[in-house]
């Protein structure tokens, strides 16, 4: 399947990995109101987010600056606009606006000036040219066309039309990626992910509630730099953002290994930054680069601010990770006297079983605890959400790359 964008702008600067940036590019950056230093710094951040070697920064910079305004069409269906809001929070806005200036945001209901007929014309014109990047927020209801209409057309009708000829679909947030909240039990509108409705177009899923905008800009930068989408797992999540478990990169991990836990909100352990696992943290079952990127320009992240992870980037988390404050299974018998090595082994062994059971058990509880006299079920597996990935010590959900290409080409 083709992921080469149509007619990318040839650039004398994009071809070398370490080459200098030419004057033409600099002039263009100045034109856009950006100075070279801050631009390169930003590309360094993108490069780090993408987990590329630092030597790639100039190549990212060259590609981002040379791009020929590929068109972005941003659709919203059963959504809360949280992902559009997240997009407005892109760090270093001078540079983020370069991305915006270089992407032509041709349809985005939250910010666009046009309304009604005029907005639909803008959308149809962009889609008609083809080669656009389709960004989608929100799930798609299959239970009835009346559950979501825009301009008199149903979500399904719009999505099918707008994905025709698209170079790629980027699903922002857990709802478009996996069905998300509307698809939580009992899924009253039979909501599904975008990938369940569209085929034949490569998909990148950026789940999270909402998605972290730094992962969106990095995905776009990767696409512009390598003319290919980043390598992804079996759930189409880029490995650069969803390859590692939160627990493994958590600054509180040392406290977990040492058996030091916050036991109540505001207690001494909580104030001292102890592990939040006893207060329900789902970091051990969640794959996301939250601890590395953090939020709002690297200001803070939920665990850093004292609340456990709820696993918001995992498919089906509304059913598999709830109740949010139920601790993952209690591990007895270790304290500060034990060695880290011994503890590590004990904890991994015991919790691997525990976390796996947790997912299954909670799903059953959620099913039994509610009226379930209708056909809909808790779709925890969603085709690809293997409960094994919720187990401790297992690898993320598959590292196969559907495009058969390595990320940095």
């Amino acid at each position: 399947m083709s992921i080469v964008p149509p007619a990318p702008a040839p650039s004398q600067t994009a071809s070398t990995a370490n080459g200098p940036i030419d004057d033409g590019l600099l002039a263009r950056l100045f034109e856009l109101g950006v100075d070279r230093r801050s631009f390169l710094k930003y590309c360094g951040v993108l490069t780090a987010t993408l987990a590329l070697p630092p030597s790639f920064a100039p190549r990212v910079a060259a590609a981002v600056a040379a791009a020929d305004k590929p068109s972005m069409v941003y659709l919203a269906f059963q959504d809360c606009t949280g992902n559009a809001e997240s997009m407005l929070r892109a760090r270093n806005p001078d540079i983020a606006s370069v991305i915006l200036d270089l992407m032509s945001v041709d349809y985005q209901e939250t910010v666009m000036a046009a309304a009604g007929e005029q907005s639909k014309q803008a959308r149809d014109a962009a889609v008609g040219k083809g080669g656009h990047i389709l960004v989608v927020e929100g799930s798609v209801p299959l239970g009835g066309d009346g559950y979501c209409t825009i301009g008199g057309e149903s979500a399904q009708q719009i999505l099918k039309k707008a994905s025709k000829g698209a170079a790629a679909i980027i699903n922002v947030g857990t709802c478009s990626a996996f069905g998300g909240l509307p698809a939580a039990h009992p899924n009253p509108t039979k909501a599904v992910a975008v990938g369940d409705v569209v085929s034949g177009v490569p998909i990148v899923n950026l789940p999270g509630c909402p998605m972290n905008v730094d992962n969106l800009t990095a995905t776009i930068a990767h696409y512009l730099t390598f003319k290919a989408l980043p390598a992804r797992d079996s759930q189409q999540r880029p490995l650069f953002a969803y390859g590692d478990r939160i627990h493994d990169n958590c600054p509180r991990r040392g406290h977990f290994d040492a058996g030091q836990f916050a036991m109540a909100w505001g207690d001494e352990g909580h104030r001292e930054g102890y592990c939040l696992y006893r207060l329900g943290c789902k970091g051990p079952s969640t794959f996301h680069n939250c601890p590395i990127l953090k939020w709002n320009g690297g200001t803070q992240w939920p665990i850093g601010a004292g609340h456990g992870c709820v696993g918001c980037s995992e498919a089906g988390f509304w059913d598999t990770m709830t109740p949010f404050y139920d601790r993952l299974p209690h591990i007895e018998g270790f304290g500060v006297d034990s060695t880290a090595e011994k503890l590590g082994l004990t904890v991994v062994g015991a919790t691997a079983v525990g976390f796996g059971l947790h997912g299954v058990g909670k799903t059953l509880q959620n099913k039994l605890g509610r009226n379930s006299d209708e056909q809909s079920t808790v779709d925890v597996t969603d085709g690809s959400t293997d409960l094994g990935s919720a187990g401790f010590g297992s690898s993320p959900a598959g590292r196969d790359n559907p495009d058969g290409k390595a990320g940095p080409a």
Partner: protein
Amino acid sequence: MSPRIVVDPITRIEGHLRIEAQVDGGMVQDAWSSTTMWRGLEQILIGRDPRDAWYFAQRICGVCTTVHALASIRAVEDALDITPPLNARLLRDLIGVSQYVHDHVVHFYHLHALDWVDVVSALKADPQQAAVVAQSLSDYPRNTAKQMTAVQQRLQAFVQGGRLGPFANGYWGHPAYKLSPEVNLLAVSHYLDALDFQRDYVKIHALLGGKNPHPQTYVVGGMAIPIDPNSQYAINDNTLQQVRGLLQSGLNFVNQAYIPDLVAIGKSYPEWTAIGGGLNSYMTFGDFGGAQPKRGQTDTAGILPSGIVRNGDLSKVEPVDPMKITEDVARGWYSYREGDGTPLRPYDGETTANYTGPNPPYDFLDVDKKYTWLKAARYDGIPVEVGPLARMMVGYAAGDARIKPLVDGALQTLGVGPAALHSTLGRTLARGLETKLLADQSLGLLDQLVANIAGGDLAVHAGVKWEPKSWPAKARGVGFHEAPRGALSHWIVIEDQKIKGYQAVVPSTWNASPRDAKGQPGAYEAALVGTPIADPKQPLEILRTVHSFDPCMACAAHVIDADGTPIVEVRVQ
């Protein structure tokens, strides 16, 4: 009679809104407001742990990203008779107040300004002159000729590139645009600055709540963020200093950019003080900085007032009686067992989806029947407007010591009387005024928090009733929050430690309401009647009035089933 004009999607709002309007003689004669998306959150909540409800409810909306979390937490605390510690209440207020400043700035510049500002006209401006005009309005440091020139050049490059992106297909050149090219240029300059401002300012939510959108820090009984001046893992002096700096930056931006720009627009469009009034009855629940309200009651001691004003009568303010709130579904795509026109209180509410609209793709809704995913919320049987205008009206009528002088000052500046507030421009003006009020008060709230911590109080959570086994077998409660878009209430019924029923009556449910069983229109519908339309193909004037309410449709369309009957019927005509 000419065919109805349809504006769908209404853009620059949250969510999916459709307006159909009957236009004759260059004026809107009648209008219908339709919400075209439904998720069924109500049914999703049934049977879950009430302590999780806030996290689900927060996803009602990612724009009002704090408000449903707070109302939900308060509903559970009301049901279980929990009083959170003072620190937690102040932290919630700080997050809530900064949400107002953030949300209103974004609304003014990014959602509403393009209704008044012609971006293309800015290309014709003299940047030197634009700077002179800007400097005559305020001492905002970026009102320089250099800045105006740079913005104009950037805009020029954008237009020459031939791909206007989000500015494409706007109603540029429409006769209803009246600002000079220079004022348009300065507004575009501040539009771009406001993008930067909002991105930085909202770091308050990251510092106090881990992230934004959707801060992750609320817990039933208090907050999940610890306070300890001697720890780097808790709110400490460093955190408080950063928050103070950001709050101050908000106050500066509001005083130096938002308010002067608002006044400039207000002076240029005086006719809009006579258009777009509508219901003239207002309701506000009150909030921020007061003592813990009595169980089941609104906050009558906060910075924002609580009360009802009927029919524009500013001589008296009624107290809010929450038991007078009802909803019917005569014109919404739901059915009630006792009849769709029966007004039900939120605790007794039902939600059985019943789509009877046209099969998409369609051109028109059948507005004589059901036409929206909203219920008709009513107070004591009448429709009321909620939001900034309601708060300023109730505060003004009550003689509030902060609000009355603020409103009087603005009226004097614009040279109009209080009746001018019942209008599209009045609504937009009220939003700016309360942003100033809350940006001012935010620093006082922070001072209170600092003083309380300095006194040795580190508590952030009342944990006595954290464990569900400590709860009664049955409980019910209501959580009120005066949200940026208006009066918000969440209603919860808890049985056997699980959610038995949950209902949210949301600001945009009040304002975007359809007709009720008696045929009374909702606030948008009433406000649109009488709006002049210069060109039915470019209904810019409809956008002005609808945007003045700051619609939030994902919020509005998710009425919640207190009864837990998960029946969904979809009938397509």
